[in-house]
């Protein structure tokens, strides 16, 4: 039974596991797919590290102040204003 199950649902390989990270974090994997993903993590330190890095990526991005402009946008708007000023004169 167990062997048959493994034949039907072979272990994940790392290259597949990294594609499931977002669905795993979103909670949108089926219970079976989730167990399979977690079984892979338990055996794979690299994919465990990868998952931690995806969580860290989300955390670091989430700490940006939403009101801030990129330096590039700031330059663009400064140029826009200068152009407007020169048209006024």
């Amino acid at each position, binding site marked *: 039974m167990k062997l048959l199950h493994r034949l039907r649902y072979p272990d994940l390989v790392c290259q597949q596991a990294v594609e499931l990270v977002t669905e795993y974090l979103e909670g949108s994997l089926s219970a079976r797919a989730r167990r399979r993903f977690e079984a892979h993590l338990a055996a794979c330190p690299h994919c465990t590290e990868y998952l931690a*890095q995806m969580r860290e990526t989300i955390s670091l991005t989430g700490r940006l102040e939403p009101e*801030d402009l990129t330096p590039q946008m700031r330059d663009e708007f400064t140029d826009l204003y200068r152009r407007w000023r020169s048209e006024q004169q």
Partner: protein
Amino acid sequence: MDPDSELLLQLRSGDERAFVSLVERYHEPMLRLAASFVPSGAVAEEVVQDTWLAVLRGLNNFEGRSSLKTWLFRILVNRARSTGSKEQRSVPVADPEPAVDPSRFGGGGWADPPEHWIEAAERRMEAGKLADRIRAWLGELPARQREVVLLRDIEGMSSEEVCAVLALTEGNQRVLLHRGRSRLRQLFEDEFREVR
């Protein structure tokens, strides 16, 4: 003098920093609002840019009967309404885009495993030296990935809210989020690989 009329005076007298600070205060909230009227983030971007041009053009005629903020948002909403639904939203999510460069795997397993960078990134973030890099990276993401990452991971919206705002299906939203986050993770790794 209320802060608006002081700002208005500065804007009319050529204080470019006053304009940039106005943009900093309202650009993103306006983008978010515009996104609820038009079918894509890219169109919202255009609407907000058009709004800023209209604001500059109208600055000398603005009579201050409403607050500056109300005026800005009224221009935005008028423009968003007239622009909205002109363009059909298409989501190019069919093309495969792997989360990790396939050359880093051999037989499906990691050949070139992820390098550690979490602690180094935390240190640099705490030193205030990482946020600008992340913003630049966000700017490099394909527009649709960026919109989803901005709304989900910076604005903290739920997937349902993001789907509603950007007119995406749940599945496409998740694909775009996955690709955007995966690209960012790779950029973090690249950044700190060079430091070691």
